[in-house]
């Protein structure tokens, strides 16, 4: 296994709501190697997007980094402050859910894609323009020289997301952060954009960190995955194995709750209860009030994310679970 390109250790982020603060990302650790795709799945409020923003040094005003280290290629990055963005420039780029919010509506897309080569890499105007066309071609925009003259509103949703990806690639980053980049797209277009990200990962050797609520999307793209619930990683491991044989009751619950196209009809097994209010997280394991396996221990202390005792870990990835009863989780 290659050395990790991105390493996140004990990342902790708090968020203010009114006069109160709560921990939205709670001591999470993971790593992504060059040429690899790592997925984080979770429902709304799980802290998955904040994790990405913390790595990008783009936390919103209400959020505060409380601790943890972010290593890029073995070197620690400043978490906040003036230097933080500069350190990331040209190395880390991000693609958002809504490509329209990433694009300037009154400027031609070619100019926008040329901005990074021109102002960050200091290329000449002509070189930057040529590079923009090259990038638009790389992300699969047909007839890129002509399309460079279009405005964002003249493009479809899928094409806009391709342009946003081209912009992200402008400074040849080694790490691409993706925040639900296909959620706003139609399913046939989503498939195309997933193919594109996968192609870029392989061809450019990008490390990809992909955040989504959609287990199916993550399964298509990511070799490894972490499942996040109320700010904590509850399970981690190679995607296919983890989804086939989950070792956390929440992962199992999610698998039961999602409906696949070829599932038997009429069998729906939603997770009981609702997502807890982050200001009043249940004690111990925050999933325990919804968990069929919960015992007294679960309400008293937080189970750590540890390698599975049985360690049926295959290949090079280890399986980890944050559950006192991980060996009791039945196969779906």
């Amino acid at each position, binding site marked *: 296994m290659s050395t990790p390109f991105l390493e996140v250790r004990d990342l902790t982020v708090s968020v203010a709501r009114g006069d109160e603060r709560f921990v939205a990302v709670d001591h999470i650790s993971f790593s992504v190697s060059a040429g690899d795709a790592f997925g984080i799945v979770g429902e709304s409020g799980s802290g998955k997007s904040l994790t990405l923003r913390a790595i990008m040094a783009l936390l919103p005003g209400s959020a505060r980094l409380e601790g943890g280290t972010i290593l890029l290629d073995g070197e620690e990055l400043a978490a906040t402050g003036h230097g933080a963005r500069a350190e990331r420039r040209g190395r880390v780029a991000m693609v958002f859910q809504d490509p329209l919010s990433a694009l300037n509506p009154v400027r031609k897309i070619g100019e926008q894609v040329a901005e990074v080569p021109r102002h960050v890499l200091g290329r000449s105007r002509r070189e930057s323009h040529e590079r923009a066309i090259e990038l638009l071609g790389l992300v699969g925009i047909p007839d890129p020289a002509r399309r460079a003259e279009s405005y964002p509103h003249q493009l479809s949703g899928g094409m806009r997301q391709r342009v946003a990806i081209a912009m992200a690639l402008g400074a040849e980053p080694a790490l691409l952060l993706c925040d639900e980049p296909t959620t706003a797209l139609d399913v046939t277009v989503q498939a195309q954009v997933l193919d594109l990200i996968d192609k870029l990962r392989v061809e450019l050797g990008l490390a990809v960190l992909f955040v989504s609520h959609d287990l199916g999307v993550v399964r298509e793209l990511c070799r490894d995955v972490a499942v996040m619930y109320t700010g904590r990683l509850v399970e981690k491991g190679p995607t296919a194995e983890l989804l086939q044989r989950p070792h956390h009751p929440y992962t199992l619950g999610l698998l039961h709750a999602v409906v696949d196209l070829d599932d038997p*009809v009429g069998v729906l097994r939603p997770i009981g209860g609702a997502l807890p209010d982050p200001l009043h997280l249940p004690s111990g394991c925050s999933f325990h009030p919804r968990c069929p396996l919960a015992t007294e221990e679960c309400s008293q202390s937080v189970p750590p994310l540890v390698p599975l005792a049985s360690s049926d870990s295959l290949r090079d990835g280890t399986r980890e679970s944050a559950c006192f009863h991980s060996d009791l989780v039945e196969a779906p």
Partner: protein
Amino acid sequence: MTEIVAEEFPIETSSALSVDSLTVTFPLGPRRRLTAIEDVSLDLARGDSLGIVGESGCGKTTLARCIVGLQRPDRGTIRIDGDVVGAKRNAQERRAVQLVFQDPYSSLNPRMTIGAMLVQLLATHDLARGPDAEERSRELLALVGLPADALTRHPGAFSGGQRQRIAIARALAVEPRLIVADEPVSALDVSIQATILELFADLRDRLGISLVMISHNLAAVRHVCDRVAVMYLGKVVEVGDTQEVFADPRHPYTRSLLNAVPQVKRPPPAHRLRLVGEPPSPLSRPTGCSFHPRCPRAEAICSVEEPALLSVEGLTMRKAACHFRNDDPLAIITVPPEALDG
């Protein structure tokens, strides 16, 4: 343009809903109009559920708005329980069809308690007043799986899934003959979606409610709906029994749509059918079959002659708008290399 005569659907008196040759256009300027749906005919038997699937811009929401009377069609008729209803409806006709919206956060009045909302609604429609209305409200909440103490609380006290239950209770309050749900689970978290789908399936079985569910979520439709209609660029391209359509799609668009859905519990298939491009704008509709520029199966005829929605040989109740609907369905899977994106 060739004249298209869609095969007539039999208008049965027992139909909960029957849509006949519905066309809706929107003005775009002095001389331009956008055709949102064109010549759509559908039929839903009483107590049945129909899923309408397709990607954005296919016209599924416009169709839903016509059915509930929020949009006046240019042409065509809508019958509810055999009676023709226009866009202007009286109280009785409005009661007959109820809409459940996508976003339960914006569809409930935040300043009204759930009880006050239901009681007011029952009084407006002269269904119940006073203690009777309160009793009925409790029954409605029980029907959608909410405790009676929810009556005294405001929408803000409820989660997304619970709010959607409240919205469904509100729709049921006026004893409609048909419920139209427009993307009822897509604003909800994954772990909650199944609870709402289960509720719809349960109401369908228990109350015999007729249901139209608009969704881009094919798996959700498969779990709730007996029949499914697939729309592309304002037209129905395939319709039939949900299980059969999903198991043996006869329109290449249906097949590629099904193929594009990422599966959670199965490994991704080794060979993917990837569509090139995106649905074209309804303003520049391709000639012939509007799917032909993206279709892996397209031949010369497809760009010239538009296929009508016709029965498929050997499959009862199935119709598809494809020149090759009677061919070996496996032939569709053979993808020319240029159709593989990326």
